[in-house]
Structure formats: structure tokens, C-alpha cells
């Protein structure tokens, strides 16, 4: 049997695939092995060349209409087949909800280990992959390694930077794989309201929690965000309990790391903090001086957001004019 080599990257989400490609390049160089992208989809062959310019040495393409509905089994059977045939050493999979299920099932078929949502990936002196992830809902950071191969990790959006385009050469390999039929049937698709800006891309975020009493009151957060050239965010209860928004910042929602995060009237449960801890500067405004958000804040204001936020917007506006 051939030994395990090469680093693979797969995601059905293109941005995420590119971000992992950048990290994959680094790992492959360290191991002095090749970096391959697994490109699965319907009519996607023409997207392969550009991935080489983004850093891939090889692009394995399986082009099949069965991928169109984004159901797991076709992806799962393609990846199982390719991994058994070519034996990669490392596989990075995009940690979307679909990707998480896929990765768990793939590594069960391959009888190997999976580290979910790794935010740091390194190669140690024994050429093993070392993956770091958040555990205990944000209370801990675990460093993990593998005793089996391939070593598989999932990676969340915006964990790594996108690579730059380069002039480089590589190989596109079209592969024929017999794909499994889906075990489930999609009977209805309901669109969710997609915001125009991806909050992960915002440089400045003004975020609100349960201290914002009415949805209309978000206006004052929006005013501040607009003035700062940023975007508003929110906690999970505002989305899931009050149904004001379709997404939220936190462990189970969006992970963000803006230059500035202004937390308004949010207590900072550990799950929320896990989603914004990596922000460069954190400002917290809350009436309750015991609020845990203050422990991760650079600037602390113990006061009412209804007083402070409009006054802050006003003060900034004046200072910027002068």
C-alpha cells in the first residue's frame, strides 16, 4: 500500500475553499508534498484552472449533475472513493453545516480522526498535524493531534486569509466516480433573508443584546455603526427567541474578528464571547457591572445603552467635524 501523502482541501463553499487553500499551501510546503483541491459539482470544470493560480498543485474534478442538490451522499461517496484511491495525509473540509456532517461521515468510513472547527493548524517535528480548537463553549482551547491517517479537520469561514493569485502551473485531473444516491429527499426549500453584507467581512461591528428592548431601538446601534463605517450584529436570543434577525454572532452562529467590536446591552455569555473574542478592540457598554462581557473588553462603560449609544454617536460626529 502506498504511504499517505499530499494535503487536500474541500468545501462546497468557494470562499471557504480559497481560505483553506492558503493554509493548505503552508502545510503542504512544510511537509514537502503536493496540495490538491477536490472540486465537486455540476458544470464546474472551468473553475479548476484558477484554483492552481490560488496555490493548488493538482485539482481533482468530479463533474456530475448529482451534486446539484447539495445532498451529502454524492459528496460523501466521491470523497471516500478519492481518499481511498489516492491516500491523502491531511484533508481540510469547510465547516459549513453540510460540511460538518460530511466530514463526520467521511472519517467514519475511513475509520480516522476528525478535529472540528480547528482555528490553528500546524505540523510538529514528527510531521503530525496539530490542530487547535475551542472547547467547553469557549472556556477552553484544546490542542489535539492524530494517531491515524488521513488527518482530517474542519475549518470555519474567515479562519484563514484568502490566498493571492499567482502565475503557477499545476495539473487538472478529471476523475470518474460512481456516486451514491441520496438517502434523503429534499421536498421543500425555504429561502432565508440573506443580508447584503457578510458580517464576517465587517471591519467594525456594533452589536446588540437583550438590553435592546425593541427592534426599532436597533436604529441607534445602526446610526453608530454607519458613522463608524461598520455594521450591526446581535446575540442569539434576539434571533432565535425574539425573531428579529436570521443570524447571530456566537459559537453556534457567526464567528467574527473585526478591528472594533462594540457590545451594547449584551451580557456576554460564554457562547457569544466564543464568536467575537478575537476582535482587535472590544468596547462593552452594559448597566450591569457584573456582566461577563467586561472581562474581555478593552473599554468598559457601566451605564445604560439608551443614554450612552446616542451620546457616543453624537460626540463622534462632532469630533469628526472639527
Amino acid at each position, binding site marked *: 500500500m502506498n504511504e499517505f501523502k499530499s494535503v487536500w482541501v474541500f468545501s462546497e463553499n468557494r470562499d471557504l475553499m480559497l481560505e483553506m487553500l492558503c493554509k493548505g499551501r503552508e502545510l503542504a510546503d512544510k511537509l514537502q508534498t503536493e496540495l490538491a483541491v477536490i472540486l465537486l459539482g455540476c458544470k464546474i470544470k472551468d473553475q479548476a484552472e484558477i484554483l492552481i493560480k490560488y496555490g493548488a498543485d493538482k485539482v481533482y474534478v468530479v463533474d456530475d449533475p448529482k451534486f446539484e442538490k447539495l445532498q451529502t451522499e454524492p459528496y460523501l461517496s466521491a470523497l471516500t472513493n478519492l481518499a481511498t484511491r489516492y491516500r491523502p495525509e491531511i484533508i481540510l473540509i469547510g465547516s*459549513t*453545516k*453540510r460540511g*460538518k*456532517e460530511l*466530514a*463526520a*461521515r467521511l*472519517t*467514519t468510513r475511513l*475509520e*480516522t*480522526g*476528525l*478535529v*472540528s472547527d480547528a482555528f490553528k493548524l500546524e505540523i510538529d517535528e514528527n510531521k503530525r498535524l496539530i490542530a487547535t480548537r475551542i*472547547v*467547553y*463553549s469557549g*472556556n*477552553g482551547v*484544546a*490542542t*489535539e*493531534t*492524530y*494517531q491515524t491517517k488521513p488527518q482530517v479537520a474542519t475549518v470555519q469561514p474567515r479562519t484563514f486569509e484568502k490566498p493571492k493569485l499567482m502565475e503557477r502551473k499545476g495539473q487538472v485531473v478529471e476523475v470518474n466516480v460512481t456516486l451514491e444516491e441520496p*438517502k*434523503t*429527499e*429534499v*421536498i421543500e*426549500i*425555504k*429561502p*432565508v433573508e440573506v443580508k447584503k453584507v457578510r458580517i464576517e467581512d465587517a471591519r*467594525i461591528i456594533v452589536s446588540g443584546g437583550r438590553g435592546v428592548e425593541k427592534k426599532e431601538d436597533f436604529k441607534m446601534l445602526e446610526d453608530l455603526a454607519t458613522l*463608524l*463605517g461598520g455594521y450591526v450584529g446581535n446575540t442569539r436570543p434576539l434571533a*432565535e427567541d425574539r425573531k428579529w434577525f436570521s443570524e447571530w454572532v456566537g*459559537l*453556534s452562529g457567526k464567528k467574527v474578528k473585526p478591528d*472594533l467590536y462594540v457590545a451594547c446591552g449584551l451580557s456576554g455569555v460564554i457562547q457569544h464571547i466564543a464568536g467575537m473574542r478575537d476582535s482587535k*478592540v472590544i*468596547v462593552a457598554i452594559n448597566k450591569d457591572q457584573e456582566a461577563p462581557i*467586561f*472581562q474581555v*473588553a*478593552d*473599554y*468598559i*462603560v*457601566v451605564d*445604560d445603552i439608551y443614554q450612552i449609544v446616542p*451620546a*457616543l454617536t*453624537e*460626540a*463622534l460626529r462632532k469630533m*469628526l467635524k472639527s
Partner: protein
Amino acid sequence: MPRIIVCLKQAVDVNHIKVDPTTRRLITADAPKKISDFDKNALEEAVRIKEKLQGEVVALTVSAEDAKTTLREALAMGADKAYLVTDPSFQDSDALITSHILAQAVKKIGSFDLILCGEATIDSYSAQVGPRLAERLGIPVITYVRKLSLEGNHVIAERSLEDRFEVAKARMPALITVIKEINEPRIPSLPDILKASKKEFVTWSLDELGVSKEKVGITGSSVQILEVLAPKGERKQIKIEGENPHEIAENLAKALIQKGFARR
């Protein structure tokens, strides 16, 4: 009448974890334990299905022996029967191994229509065990479900994905992982708690499941945890003060401008 197996994890209550300030190591030993949050939603959903269609709800956990208390709570919430797989050699097993043990236990429990799990656990949050278990059993899986119903031999489930809600249908037996929003778990009443102590409680060792001890724990697992530390907290923690809200806001504005924010 459906027979539903609910997989539960006894997890450390993450709100009660302390940190050793010198080593940054987490102190989890004396933190209280409980049924992991989303697993409780899975149990609640199973009990609701039973209330509508009758049938049976079985709670299953692979854990240290102290999980008996946790499983008693599951029985009080409405499970009819509880299975605890426990063995000292199981400690530090990863999701690959845990799903193998669960699969062996499910096979021993016998026929079933549905397996319900939480989307992930509050301690590890890896979302692996549910899909891995389905894969081992060779049954369909629908993940991140916020609405669930049974129609004849099929389960219909609405998934909450990043870009859309997707209503999926699968033939039973199937495995479903649920999200918090699917329901509000009940708090058992005193009579429910008393009744629970009379319900059937089965304990299995790994031997009884035919799982070899060499294949579990640290030696059998493919992922090994090297270290768990508290995240580094290097924040300035500057308190912005002032005579009144306006003054506080002005001082904060100055600090932000100084930091280079709000440039025009």
C-alpha cells in the same frame, strides 16, 4: 407506534468551569454535570412524539458511572427506559470510538424507528457523534433540525442551514440531530421524578457489547487531546468614566478616535 432512542451526553456545566490562574488549566473536576443542552431538546422532542403517537422512548448514554443521576433525570422527563454503557477504560475516547460503542449498544437494544441526538454537545461542540452513528448503522441522517414530524414510515424534518431552510424526508429508521429552537424542554414535576425511580434502568459494560477494551480510550482513539488551557485574556480593561452619560460618551469617543477608528 414509534420506538425512539435518544442519545444523551452527560456534560460538564460549562458555566461552572474554573481556571487555575497560574497554569491556565481548566478545573472541571468539581464542576456540576448535566444532560448536554441540545440533547435535552432531543429527549423533549422524543417525548412529545410519544405523547402524540404512543410508542416508547429509550435514553442511551455512554459515560462514567456517575451518569446514573443524569439518566434518572431523563426518565423523569418522560423516557421509559434508560441504558447506561459504562466502563473505566472508556475515558478520553474520541467521537470515532464513542459512535462505535453507541452503535453496538443500539444493535443490542434492538429494533427502533428513530434515533434523536442534539446537534452537538456543550463541552466539545464537535457535532460528530450523531452523523458518525448514522453512518455506522447505515441509516439516513438529517442534521440541524428545527421541526419534526412522522408520516407513516417516513420522517419529515426541517433543517436550519446557513443559506436556507430545507425540508427533507427520509425513510425510517433514521437519525435526526436537533437544534435548540425545536422546543423548550420540560422541567419534570415531583410525581414524575418519583415515578422515574421505578422505571427500568439497564447498565452494560463494554464486554457485554462485545467491544474490546484495547480499542477504546486513549489507545483506541484516533484523536488525542494534548492540552486544554483557558484562552489568553489580554484585554486592557480600561473603565471609561465621567460625570454624566455625555461626558462618558465623549471620553469613549476620544479613545476610539485615538485608536484610529472613525476616520473620514
